């Protein structure tokens, strides 16, 4: 089957062109630029695809710049985040619900294309890890929780593309970018035990002929209740594995599991009791590497943390200049200003560790150490930033009049979640 990548890309764009919200959001220009670059050099460049322009082997210079296409992607999604997600975030948090209209708009953005390989008509290539991180980072500037919810389909597609066999990819991926959309997925990886290690799931997968039987419990599954398919991590006799499980299977029971934050994205507790899964549903790509699966997941959360921390920096910078105390803006005091400077320093540090791990992934360098250190740093610094942001707003920061208390709650999740998203 010959898939017309450019055609697919253009069909996403045409949907965007018909929607009216890009005008409201003043992001029409970014779209048009993307369309322009799409018609010029094929949209796949926007995915950071480098096949058209392979880097010369000698050109391995240190380079922090984004490609023109990556920059456009960032501009477009930041616009969406700040104009659509941010205003919707408070209500979504309070109601523990993502508005359907928002999901629809996000679908129009065609994000899942970045998770589906070119062979299946998507835009993802080897070099889309950073683009994926930029997507997450940009969306999270609007809201951590909404961004997480919107990233679930992309994450599922990434997961199947990276870890599934070619037959599994061909079976599952095209739906993600089809007109009617893919079945709702969720990634069920985190477990409820204390001092657990996601690398050694307590959930068991016992082989029984052509099936596996899954037993265990998964916690804080993002969008778990709405999902009709679950990607479940479980310990098989030959090591940790991932299974695509029909959420309606016998033995699966689910309940909402509200937490400190991430209210909008429908956290779910899932029990698996003797759930029968066909062997064909075990992800079986050639290079299957469960620890690497966790690394890419960690990076997804790091990217959300970077975006949220950026939002916090922007918010407190403005607030501290406007808020007066003792006859002058509070930003004139070092006790305040130095906290803001520290937010900026650590945010930049988080971003560089994240970007480095992504850039390494794109050229096939090992990323275990880099992903581990990125996560470690982001867990610490993002929470510090969340806490300082509340502090800088004083009592006002403690109330829901401002988003900082929500970011505070959301950012704590970084230390706790494993595997719910995937770059």
């Amino acid at each position, binding site marked *: 089957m010959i898939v017309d990548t450019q055609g697919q890309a253009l069909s996403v764009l045409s949907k965007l062109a018909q929607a009216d919200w890009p005008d409201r959001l003043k992001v029409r220009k970014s779209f048009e630029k993307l369309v322009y670059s799409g018609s010029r050099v094929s949209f796949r460049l926007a995915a950071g695809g480098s096949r058209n322009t392979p880097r010369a082997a000698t050109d391995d210079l240190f380079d922090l710049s984004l490609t023109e296409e990556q920059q456009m992607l960032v501009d477009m999604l930041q616009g969406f985040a700040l104009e659509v997600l941010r205003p919707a975030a408070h209500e979504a948090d309070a109601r523990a619900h993502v508005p359907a209209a928002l999901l629809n708009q996000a679908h129009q953005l065609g994000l899942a294309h970045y998770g589906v390989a070119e062979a299946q008509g998507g835009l993802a290539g080897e070099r889309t890890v950073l683009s994926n991180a930029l997507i997450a980072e940009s969306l999270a500037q609007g809201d951590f929780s909404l961004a997480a919810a919107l990233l679930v389909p992309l994450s599922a597609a990434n997961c199947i593309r990276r870890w599934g066999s070619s037959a599994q990819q061909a079976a599952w991926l095209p739906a993600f970018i089809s007109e009617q959309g893919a079945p709702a997925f969720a990634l069920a990886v985190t477990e409820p035990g204390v001092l657990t290690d996601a690398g050694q799931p307590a959930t068991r997968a016992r082989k029984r002929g052509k099936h596996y039987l899954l037993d265990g419990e998964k916690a804080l599954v993002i969008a778990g209740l709405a999902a009709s398919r679950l990607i479940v991590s479980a310990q098989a006799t030959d090591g940790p594995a991932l299974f695509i499980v029909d959420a309606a299977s016998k033995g699966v029971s689910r309940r909402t599991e509200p937490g400190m934050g991430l209210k909008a994205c429908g956290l779910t507790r899932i029990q698996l009791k003797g759930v029968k899964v066909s062997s064909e549903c075990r992800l079986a790509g050639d290079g299957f590497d469960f620890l690497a699966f966790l690394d890419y997941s960690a990076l997804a959360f790091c990217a959300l943390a970077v975006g949220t921390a950026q939002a916090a920096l922007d918010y407190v910078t403005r607030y501290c200049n406007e808020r007066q105390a003792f006859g002058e803006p509070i930003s004139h005091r070092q006790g305040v200003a130095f906290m803001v400077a520290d937010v900026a*320093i650590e945010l930049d540090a988080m971003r560089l560790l994240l970007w480095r791990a992504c850039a390494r992934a794109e050229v096939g360098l090992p990323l275990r150490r880099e992903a581990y250190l990125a996560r470690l740093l982001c867990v610490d610094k993002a929470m510090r930033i969340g806490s300082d942001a509340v502090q800088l707003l004083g009592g006002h920061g403690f109330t829901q009049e401002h988003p900082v208390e929500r970011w505070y709650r959301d950012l704590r999740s970084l230390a706790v979640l494993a595997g719910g998203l995937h770059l």
Partner: protein
Amino acid sequence: MNLETPRKFHGLQQQAQQVAKHYFRPISRKYDKVEHAYPKELDLLAALLDGMNEGSPDAVGAGSASKRGAACEQRAGNKNAGNMAALLGVMELCWGDVGLLLAMPRQGLGNAAIAAVANDEQLARFAGAWAAMAITEPGCGSDSAAIRTTAVRDGDHYILNGEKIFVTSGERADAVVIWATLDKSLGRAAIKSFVVEKGTAGMTVTRLEKKLGIKASDTASISLSDCRVPAANLLGNAEIDVQKGFAGVMETFDNTRPLVAGMAVGVARAALERTRELLICAGCRFDYAKPLLTVTHAEATLYRLEAEWEAARLLTLKAAWMADNKLPNSKEASIAKAKAGRVASEVTLKCVELVGALGYGEDELLEKWARDSKILDIFEGTQQIQLLIIARRLLGKSSSELK
């Protein structure tokens, strides 16, 4: 995007690593013990480095960290040039010994100042000279705009009067770049820097400090008493441009702060590596696989330090990369210096703690690194001064609003 060090600098890194390992480390403790003795071993090394630099466009050392370096490279697009080369060299050498690096002939911060702001005639005249930098005075350090040393024009000369302290290599260098004011009433804009050559009548070294660390590096007090300096030794523009203010002399810092950050990254790496070896001998394992909560406290601590160190390193590379690409980098240079300065202190001190008595004793170099690193969070602008610069930029504040 690529955040790995480019292959074209691997040779340079390797050379610097060899020097650090086989030249600096063996004499590291010796010159920590005999403060104020000149490490004569460095002369040979400096000659070697000069030779290396002649033969390579990507020179090691302070002099190559300047916008000039970037300008040499004609190619359009992304550049990795003199600032990054100098930084990578410094990182490796300070893995060996920060004090010895600071004591290296012709690699002084004064050389960086000359490289950054001298005109072509001056560049030629001072080529090969080892230059120290003297800003700090007994009455002012962080507040460099408050310096009291004066320069008064007298025909073809300026006459300098004042007191300078804490001049790194002030005794050993061939020349000292002295900051002085042409007119105290005009504030920052009137501050200019002058190259004063050793032996100039009226300039005397009055004292050498005894210090916590970097003992291999001499720290001199210098007195200037009717010291006549040729007018042609004034670096940059002699006009007092109140609009431009401090910018001229301060520009140097955008290039030198990443270098000091690089020193911090270098010494911190030394401590991390040695501590890791000792911890592994004691049964620790580092495979970057288990959650932090399920490894030993010692392992988790080292992981944390390593993450902080990576952050410092990448922020520093970023600042140098921006300089090479002629992007305004004052904020990023200060971010690098602030982060690397505090991380080096944290890492080196924690490493002493992690290996206990062994770390505290003089049989290992860990206690020395923990003393050496502290200065890196102080000179070229303290932690607090960096935070001020960063905060003013972020918040859009002047120095009178955010003091």
